[in-house]
Structure formats: C-alpha cells, structure tokens
C-alpha cells in the first residue's frame, strides 16, 4: 500500500503514438486516495487516450505508470481490472440479456468453478447482493436481467461492478474511470449519478471525462486540462471556473493562410438560396431553421451530441434523421420517404464522418470508388460500364485532387486517410454537385492533405458550390465558414457571421456551446 498523502496512481512522461502520429506526449498525472479528478480538453486533445492508457486498453509508447506503489503495466483491460482499475464505458459494456450477477463476474466465472465444471452461481449471487447492499443499491436485484433496468440503474450496475471486482481481486481502494457518463442522460439522472459518486468516494477514487464543463466544477477535486496531446494546466478545487477551463482548453493560434481565408467569397442577399431548412425537429433536434446561399460555407458547430450531425443526416436523407419540418434544395422540398435518393437527384453530395464504412469502400479500387455515384457517366452501352471511360474519369480526378496512389486500380484500403478522403470528394465531384454536406471532412487526415482539402473547398465555392460544414474542430469551423451556427441540446443557440476580417474567436464560440 502507499503511504498516506502519497498518490495511489502515478503516470510519468507518458506518450502515445499511433502509426507514427503522436497523440499525447509528456503526460504526468497523479490520483490520490478518495479523490475525484477530471481531465478536460477539446475533441482530439488526448483525454480519451490518456484514460485508455490507465485502463490498459492502450499501452503507452513511452513513459511509466505506478499503482499502489508498484509498477503498473496492464496490456489489456482485464489486467487493469485485476489490479483495481475499472472503466465505465460511454456505450455501456454490460450484456443486456444477462442477469446482473452474471454481468458482474463475466469472464471471471472460472473462479467460481465447482466439481464437474459447474459454476457456483449461489456464491456469485450472494457476493453480488452483499456488495449492492453495501453500496446502497439494495433496490437492484442481482438475479434480474440487466436490460430490464433503466439506463441510470445500469450505470450504477457498471460502477458497482468495479467495486465487486476490486473486492474480488482483494483491492481495497479501486480507481473508477468514467468516460462521458452523462453524454446520454438527462439532468435528473446526472444528479443521481453524481450523488452516488460522492457517496462512493470514501471507498474509491474517480477519474471523470465529460463534455459539459460545468460538471467538472460540480464534481471534481482537481482538474487536468489537455490541449493538443499535452497537459497545459492543473487546477485545484475553488480554483477552477468554467471560463478559466475554456481559456486553458482553447487558444490555439489560427493560421489564416492555412484556411485560405483571403479567398473566402463574400455572400450577399443577392445570391440565390440553395438549401433551406425550416423548423427541423425530431429525435432531440428542436426547431432548427436556416438558409444556405450559393457559394457559401455555412459552419455548424457544437459539442458532440448537440444535434448538428442529425441536421446533416436530414439534409442528405441518411436514416435515421429528424423527420419534422422541411428541407428544400433549390426550392424543391425533399420527401420524407426516399429522401436519400431525392437528395442525390437534387445534386447534393455527402461526405460522412465514418470514412471507412460510410464514405468509401476500402476493398474496391480508386476507379470504382470514384465512379460509384456517377456510374451513368461511365457506361458505354446502357448498363455496361466502359473500363476505358471509368479509368479516364479516375485519372482526371487523381490528377485534379492530387490523390497519391499507384493508379486507378489500387484498392482504396491502401491509401492514407487524407487520400481516401480525396477519393470520397472525387466521387461527388465526378457526379457534379451544387451542395456538399461535409461531416468532419478532415477527421484522421494528415496536415498536408487537410490543407489541400481546404483549398479544394475554396475552389468549389468559387465555382458556385455551396457547402454545409459540420465539424468538431473549432479552428476549422472558424477558418472556413462564411457564417457559423452553434447548436446546443438540439437547438441553434447562436448565429455568427465570419467574414475574413472579423472571424470570431474560439472562446467566443465555446461560450455558446457549453
């Protein structure tokens, strides 16, 4: 055990690289007994990666960890659990059709083996009941099927599981990692969850990641702030206010050249409206209305889960999408049924967030991916693809977008992220579009390819293509957009023009987002 006043967990000089790209670097982090700490930061700042290193899901590339005074080097999550670290996952990691006690001891059943290979379920239930009672969760019956409990109770079951397993592996004081536990629940459930965490803190330490900054202020004793993969601030309770957390989180320098701001087109009332969304509602999107004019880049920002992605889905008809209200493209209303097809027919292109499953088809060639939305343009005889035309089309776009590939016949899976994204763009350009809906178009794209994609967007708008840009990257949102809408909890809460000479700051936009 560690001496009083010493941290029970230490991380020193931790760094993580994925395929040569450094995601986090030089992270020193301590957790003390009975403490609730938070790790704040923008998307991509490295907070999830840090959490996953503590949980054994990622091995640190460099650096060391210590737990209860001993070296700690888990290689998988079960190692971490055995040593007393548990994680409460955002998408719950409980099997809904198993009973509560079965979930508690899932994959540890062999410790309950009885003669003849049978499992001593009686002892499992007994242990589960005792722990639930101790944690003040007596209302949960370990024999009931997990899926029959409400989301909030299932969250409690996950936290309880951490205590049950810690005790089982004879760890006195477990560390529980909470990865965005409040992302999918309402205010009432959040209050219940926080009450429980406060109650449990005399028996465990907690690490919290959340998108709602106010929650750090309410719950945490100490807060680490990360930016671009590094720790930039450490704040103690009473020291942190939401505004100070923001300041530490953002404040990167924006390079105007990078976003080609000088070529941003001026948009006036004279430019025709290409996309008109009126009173869009459904799911948790509420009453969203806006117009998008020819050649304009309209940026849609907000935290993850604010509803901005649902708005994009409604425009392109990618189910499920909010069904209320209307979406008009060039004056024509898109129908509810078959909206996907109608949207494509109205010359709308969609570059989705998940490039590898939604954007392109990795096992098909560059040529086949390029022609996928424009097959009619490469047919010779009706219904028969002309190999020559398809190759020519692919060559044209490889050249135009500077796609780095060995040729049209190379499979897309062998291209880098940035070049894959260029192929997704090429697919729509080959078809010819008036409106492009881009959902995080530079996610997982290297810096050089990012700049090329930005330049391409400027060229397209110069030709009169309109762009609806949804992005989690604030600098990109500010740098590229003519106008920015910020969404929060399904509603548009702010509209801010962003002409090149008067771009808003990150701090200004974050103020609307949280």
């Amino acid at each position, binding site marked *: 055990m560690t001496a009083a006043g010493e941290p029970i967990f230490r991380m020193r000089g931790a760094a993580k690289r994925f395929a040569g790209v450094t995601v986090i670097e030089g992270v020193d982090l301590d957790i003390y007994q009975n403490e609730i700490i938070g790790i704040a930061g923008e998307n991509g700042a490295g907070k999830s990666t840090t959490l996953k290193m503590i949980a054994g899901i990622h091995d640190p590339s460099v650096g060391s960890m210590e737990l209860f005074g001993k070296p700690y080097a888990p290689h998988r999550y079960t190692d971490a659990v055995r040593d007393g670290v548990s994680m409460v996952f955002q998408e719950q990691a409980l099997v809904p059709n198993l009973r509560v006690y079965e979930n508690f001891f899932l994959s540890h059943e062999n410790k309950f083996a009885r003669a003849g290979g049978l499992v001593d379920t009686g002892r499992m239930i007994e242990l589960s009941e005792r722990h639930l009672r101790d944690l003040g969760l007596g209302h949960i019956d370990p024999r009931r099927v997990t899926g029959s409990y409400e989301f909030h109770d299932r969250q409690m079951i996950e936290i309880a599981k951490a205590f049950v397993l810690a005790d089982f592996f004879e760890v006195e004081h477990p560390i529980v990692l909470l990865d965005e536990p409040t992302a999918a629940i309402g205010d009432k459930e959040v209050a219940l969850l926080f009450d429980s965490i406060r109650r449990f803190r005399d028996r465990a330490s907690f690490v919290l990641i959340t998108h709602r900054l106010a929650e750090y202020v309410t719950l945490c004793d100490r807060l680490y702030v990360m930016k671009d993969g590094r720790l930039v601030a450490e704040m103690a309770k009473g020291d942190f206010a939401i505004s100070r957390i923001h300041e530490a989180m953002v404040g990167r320098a924006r390079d105007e050249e990078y976003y080609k701001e000088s070529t941003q087109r001026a948009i006036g009332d004279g430019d025709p409206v290409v996309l008109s969304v009126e009173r869009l509602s459904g799911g948790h999107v509420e009453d969203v209305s806006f117009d998008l004019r020819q050649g304009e880049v309209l940026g849609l920002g907000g935290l993850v889960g604010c509803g901005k992605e649902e708005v994009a889905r409604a425009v*392109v008809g*990618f189910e499920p999408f909010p069904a209320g209200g209307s979406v008009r493209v060039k004056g024509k209303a898109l129908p509810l049924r078959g909206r*996907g*097809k109608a949207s*494509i027919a109205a010359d709308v292109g*969609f570059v*989705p967030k*998940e490039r590898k*499953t*939604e*954007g*392109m*088809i*990795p*096992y*098909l060639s560059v040529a*086949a991916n390029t022609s*996928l*939305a424009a*097959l*009619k343009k490469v*047919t010779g005889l009706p*219904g*028969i*693809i002309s*190999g020559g035309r398809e190759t020519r089309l692919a060559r044209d776009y490889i050249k135009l977008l500077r796609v780095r590939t060995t040729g049209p016949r190379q499979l897309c899976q062998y291209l880098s992220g940035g070049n894959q994204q260029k192929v997704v763009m090429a*697919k729509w350009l080959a078809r010819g579009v008036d409106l492009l809906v881009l959902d995080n178009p530079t996610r997982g794209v290297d810096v050089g390819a990012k700049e090329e994609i930005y330049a391409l967007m400027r060229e397209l708008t110069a030709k009169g293509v309109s762009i609806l840009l949804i992005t989690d990257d604030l600098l990109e949102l500010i740098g590229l957009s003519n106008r920015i809408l910020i969404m929060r909890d399904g509603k548009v809460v702010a509209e801010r023009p962003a002409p090149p000479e008067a771009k808003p700051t990150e701090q200004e936009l974050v103020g609307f987002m949280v």
Partner: protein
Amino acid sequence: MSAFASFYERNRSLMGVLVPFAFLILLVVVFTLLNDRFLSWVNVFNLMRQSSILLLVATGTTFVILMGAIDLSIGSIVTLVAIATALLLRDAGLSAAEVVAVGAAIGAACGLINGILIVYARVPSFVATLSTMIVFGGISTWVAGGANVTFRNAEMTWLASGRMIWQIPNSGLWALAIFAIAAFVGARSVFGRSLYAIGAGSVAARISGIDVWRTQMIAFVVSGVLCGLAGLLLVARTSTGTARMGDDLLLEAIAAVVMGGTALSGGAGGVHRTILGVLVISVLKNGLNVAGVHPYVQICVTGLIVIIAVTLTLDRSRLAFVK
C-alpha cells in the same frame, strides 16, 4: 511465418486462382493415372454434361454471395422446377418450349419470394432462404405425391443430351453460354458493380446512391431463374422428377463459389471465377466414378475433399471472426 505462407499472403489474388487451378491439375493427373479413359473424349463430354447443372446453380448463387448474402434455397428450387416440369409434361401435355418458359418463371417466382422476404420483410437472407428451402422442398414432394414422376419427351431429351455442334452435349453448351453472359454481367455491368459495392460496403453504397434494394431483388431473382434452368436440364437428362433430386447442389454450389475465390463476406471474387470451383467438384465426382470407387464411399470422399479444398482456398483475410 514460413516463406511459403508469406509469399501466399503477398500474392493473395494470384494464389486465389493458382491454388484451385493446381488442385484441378492434380485431380486430373491422379485420375488419369488411375484410369487412362479419364481423359478420353467420351468422358470429357460426359463431364461437361454432368457439370452443366452445377455450373448454372453456382453461377446464380455467386451473384447473391457477392452481395454478402446467401441463398440456401437453390437446391430446392432446382427440385421444385424439375418436378413441376415433369408433371406438366406427363399430365398437362405441355410442349418442351412451354415448360422451359414455365420452369424459368417458377424459378423467377421463387427468387422473387426470397427477395421480398429480404428487402421488404427485412429477414436476414440466411434465415429467409433456409425457410423457403423447406417450403419449396415441401411443395415439390406434395405436388409429386411423394412418388417419382416419369415422362417421355424427345425434345426434352434433345435439350439436355442432344448434340447440336459436333459431339458436345447440348446441356454443356447452354450452361457455358449462360455462364459467359453471367460472367460478363458480373464483371462489367452497373448491376454487377452494385453487387460488389453492397458486399464490400453497403452503407457507403447506399449513401452513394446505389439502389441497394433493387439490386438485392434482382440478384435473388437471377439466382432463382438460373436454378430453374438447372432444374429443367436436370429433369430433361433423366426424364424423371424425384423428390430431393437437387439437394446435393446446395453444398456443392456454395463450395464451388468459395473455391473459385468469391468471399462469403461479399465484395470480392467474381462470377467468372466460379467455373474453376465447379470444375474441381465435377472432376472429383466424375473421376471417383471412373476410378470405380463405391458410390457410397464417393459421397464421403466428395464431402471430405470439398472441405479440404475450401480450407485451402477460403480467403480469411476479410473475416473478422470465423463463425
């Protein structure tokens, strides 16, 4: 990893053709050594006649497998069309031309039912076609009254066993002609491309404007029609409709598709490659016969060799789990 294994991994697509081809050569050499009549013209034409039915069924089912779906009802569609044809010829007095049209139509209808279950009722193809396999099989036994249906029709016999060109059996000609068209459609048409796109990435295909539902529907109908034509040739050859006569074709066709190099997960391979798998299976069955192996032992050996061949040729690089 051994040198061979790493070479194999680096040249997957080449190996996908070479391994079954080498296997085929090996079989031919072994059977020729066992009986020198194996490579005689008589036996080669006999082999063509025997493999024509499997070629049609396997070709049809390749369309479905390319989408990452499966059609388990193929064998029972063959049986249903064979028995219906025999009944129509014996009892209703239809001409050969009429039964060919009706047979193809029954096959199309069966495929349409599969398609509707998958596209509109949203039942996974494995479950949907497993059920229709039982239903179609039940219907054929029922309409035949459980008995064999024998007929006499010279035109039908000509259709399967006649020789239009030189000594080549007609059934082989039909099957090769249809296979050639199907291979072209699979490799070069918009429909064929849609199959690959759906098999390799159905969400991306849908977002790109590929009509996923229509493509699925057509693929199952094509599979049904080709099974119908296979059923016609089968019954024309024997002049007798028998319950369960098409059952063996299910495993043989899927095995032929996989040996040819089409991934069960969809999106890779091709209709044109299926003929290689068909040849391996047909040569095996024919060779065992020529070599004088006891018929019951033949069944066991065929099953064993199919599983060995599939084990060697199945492309597992695309399977996250083997299940």
